[in-house]
């Protein structure tokens, strides 16, 4: 009975998807009908299917058969889905005409199907990005409902999921579109308040800054809010709650990873070697985006001295001072909390950065850091913005797990992680000696943290990469893990806690 229900759910959902895909080959007259029909079918089919599996009255974590399912264990379905998603991302980023997008004239096909919704929300014809945004939001909402069902009984998961669903629907999708409709004459700038620099890597690019500054009160508000979040809002929130306030409560990438990506969270690698690679990779991206941004600001100031509050010299001086103070504080005040290689990275990259800035900045050239800022921006946009966050980040869900982008590539996660590691009240507490080393926590950590390695030693988990999704705590069969915000003292190593011994053994 349950099987029939499940299969009919899948069937109805796929019918909707197929309906949507047929538009790739033909154009429908009544777009509203076909658009609503396909979304309705996908919603109904999905809800029906999820209800059958997860909608039981008994709470409890339902990971039965995760490693038997071909979808969630890199089997055939996983491969098909992964390749399909990857193809879709490649089309969106580089070949939108396949989807019917026409930059010169009226779009057709899939993109055009979304015209009615696009006109309704923002008053313009749909672009491939509108199509993408709609599908993205739809996926978060539909799979969000599934996630809530699956983790029913765990309120942390409930509130967190409602939060990402809300932020995606309102902040990422509806508000920007409506604002665009209300301000048709202002030049384009990103209107997703939660999409902060450096996740939004072009926030401080010349064209974007110019558009915000010339974008009236609204543009100015977004500029000030954005800067306020970077320098004040985010550090304060991260201090009190860890980076989870963003990564698993607000962020759109996190939202998709946590909802649609949930079936793949166990595919992240927990190997030590991968952790080492991760630490290098994510900081390289961070340095890359910082350099790009400084270069962008430099060229903005150079070319728009009338719009700038700072002169070139003041700007370079300020950047050097800021980086210098930051590095000094980190190095001397927190040196015991840093791993050796992290220290080397920090110092060497910091010096290179400061040195190059000095040489280039005061020599009066238009290029900074020996590089042309436009080509830098372009390459960042291609390499990190599209290939990494899109194709690898989502397309590879079924191969590498749901948080590849967040783990290896997101510069925002790197900054928040650095602060989380060094200056935050957040930690995952381990419950004394109750760990049985079963490995569920590590297996289901989407960030590839070997949670068990800490838990079995009775040690708290304070890792820069932890996004605070809380699944380790949810799947622990012995109540060993708890995400919490508490005093800074003894955050990383609680007083050597005996694992049930009456004697003191340093484990």
């Amino acid at each position, binding site marked *: 009975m349950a099987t029939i229900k499940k299969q009919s759910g899948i069937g109805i959902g796929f019918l909707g998807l197929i309906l949507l895909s047929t538009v790739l080959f033909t154009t429908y007259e009544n777009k509203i009908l076909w658009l609503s029909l396909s979304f309705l079918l996908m919603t109904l089919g999905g809800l029906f299917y999820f209800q059958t599996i997860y909608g039981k009255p*008994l*709470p*409890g*974590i339902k*990971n*039965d*058969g*995760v*490693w*038997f*399912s071909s979808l969630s264990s890199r089997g055939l379905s996983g491969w098909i889905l992964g390749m399909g998603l990857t193809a879709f991302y490649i089309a969106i980023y580089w070949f939108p005409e396949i989807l019917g997008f026409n930059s010169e004239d009226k779009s057709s096909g899939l993109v055009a199907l979304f015209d009615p919704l696009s006109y309704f929300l923002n008053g313009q014809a749909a672009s491939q990005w509108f199509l993408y945004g709609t599908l993205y939001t739809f996926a978060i909402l539909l799979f969000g409902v599934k996630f809530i069902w699956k983790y029913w009984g*765990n*309120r*942390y998961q*409930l*509130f967190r999921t409602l939060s990402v669903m809300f932020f995606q629907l309102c902040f990422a999708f509806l508000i920007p579109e409506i604002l665009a409709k209300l301000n048709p004459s202002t030049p384009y700038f990103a209107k997703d308040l939660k999409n902060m620099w450096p996740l939004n890597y072009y926030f401080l690019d010349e064209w974007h800054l110019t558009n915000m500054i010339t974008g009236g009160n609204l543009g100015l508000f977004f500029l000030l809010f954005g800067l306020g979040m970077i320098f004040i809002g985010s550090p304060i929130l991260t201090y009190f709650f860890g980076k989870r306030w963003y990564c698993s409560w607000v962020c759109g990438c996190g939202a998709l990873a946590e909802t649609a990506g949930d079936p793949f969270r166990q595919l992240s690698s927990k*190997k*030590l070697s991968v952790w080492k690679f991760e630490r290098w990779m994510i900081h390289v991206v961070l340095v890359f985006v910082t350099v790009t941004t400084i270069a962008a600001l430099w060229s903005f100031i150079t070319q728009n001295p009338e719009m700038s509050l700072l002169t070139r010299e003041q700007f370079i001086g300020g950047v050097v001072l800021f980086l210098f103070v930051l590095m000094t504080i980190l190095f001397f005040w927190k040196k015991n909390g840093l791993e050796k290689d992290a220290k080397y990275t920090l110092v060497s990259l910091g010096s290179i950065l400061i040195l190059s800035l000095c040489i280039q900045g005061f020599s009066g050239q238009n290029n900074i850091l020996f590089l042309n800022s436009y080509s830098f921006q372009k390459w960042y946009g291609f390499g990190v913005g599209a290939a990494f966050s899109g194709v690898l980040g989502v397309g590879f869900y079924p191969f590498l797990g749901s948080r590849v982008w967040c783990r290896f590539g997101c510069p925002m996660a790197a900054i928040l992680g650095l602060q989380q590691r060094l200056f935050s009240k957040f930690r995952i*507490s381990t*419950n*004394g*000696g*109750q760990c*049985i*080393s*079963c*490995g*569920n926590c*590590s*297996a289901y950590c989407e960030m590839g943290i070997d949670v*068990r*390695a800490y838990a*079995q030693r009775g040690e708290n988990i304070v890792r820069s990469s932890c996004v605070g999704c*809380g699944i380790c*705590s*949810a*799947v622990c*069969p*012995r*109540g060993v893990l*708890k*995400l*919490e915000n508490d005093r800074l003292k003894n955050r990383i190593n*609680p007083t050597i*806690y*005996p*694992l*049930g*011994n*009456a*004697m003191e*053994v340093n*484990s």
Partner: protein
Amino acid sequence: MDEKGPNKSIVILGNGISGITTARHLRKNSSHSITVISEESPYFFSRTALMYVYMGHLQFDHTQPYENDFWEQNKIDLVQKRVQRLNTQEQTVVFDDGNTLAFDALVLACGSLPNKFGWPGQELKGVQGLYHKKDLENLETLSDSIATATVVGGGLIGVELAEMLHSRGKKVHFLIRESSFWNKVLPPEESAMINLHLLAQGIDLHLSTTLDTIEGDATDRVVRVHSTQKETFDCEWVGLAVGVSPNIDFLKDSGLALGKGIQVNRYLETNLPNIYAVGDCAEQLEPQAGRKAIEAVWYTGRIMGETLAQTLTGNKTAYQPGPWFNSAKFFDIEYQTYGKVSALANPEKESQLYWGHSKKNCSIRLSYHPYTLTFMGVISLGIRLRHDYFDRWLQTTTSINEVIQDLTQSFFDPEFTPNYMTDILNEWETQLSTLAPNP
């Protein structure tokens, strides 16, 4: 590093939690040569996690807490061979291929074997326990041919087996000797909650039912079991989960003093020099007050390993487990306990306060001394508690009033979990008002 003497050759028999903990702590504190022998598996894995492999939550690799090159990096030699016997005169272990390995010190951490009480048919195909890695593999091989399973024994492994088989869509008969689930450990309310939970999950629960005979077909595959209560259960598989016993048969002629297990003193030393025993297979000659001589529990195995490693690296240390603690999960209900809470308390020696949620599967029970009001222990279902709080309360003499006062702080459930403290206090109020102030 141990500077106190020349390096010794230490051989550890068994790569479970006890043996591996010993090895790790030996390495941490010394440069002795360390060899760990196990026939069962090349690498250490978490035995308690075998069930999750069958249920598809984990792959077998996930149950291995250390990466495979960890052992070589830490110079811990692993040998996958079967040990036939010990030659205690010459201080060697003898493998079944006739080879020998000499030791300066030998640590026996050879674990347990599932009990079988001589039931007719207990050797049939499809009748097994769940302890060994091989047991998991057997079950996996047979799994597709099982529609109905019978699990015998209402303890922790029994309920795990029931959950495992149930998760793969098998009908499960759960035969329990007692009149209520695990009621030698769980007080009546808690035990009843688990009974209801098992039924709600769809388990065919048969209380006060004992196994009589197991019947096979012409191919020696089990087809049904008969209970002593004259009931018959058709099934293709039988899980025996009626406890475990120390795995000591191969030591019979070794000269080691054996009781139910390998007898050891407080320093985990056997009667023979340079031979020690830890974990499930060790039988304490002088167990601590209120503790059993053999405790086949993950945690005690780990504590013994830590302790013995101290002794072997020059810091002679007696086995001193702190206050008792344990945990388990019965399908979706988590269980934790610290200290002592009797299933049926003697009112002269132990008073109890109980609170249970009217709808949800949550309860908490505190025990204390009726006269001194000293806090003695806690059992919780569906509520996570902090080990360090209870450990501290139990190690120092703490009054029940103080524990109740700080109880909220000891809750360890995820953020936003409803806190039932008001409810709990209301429930306990009447009993609390009769308590004398803290002496």
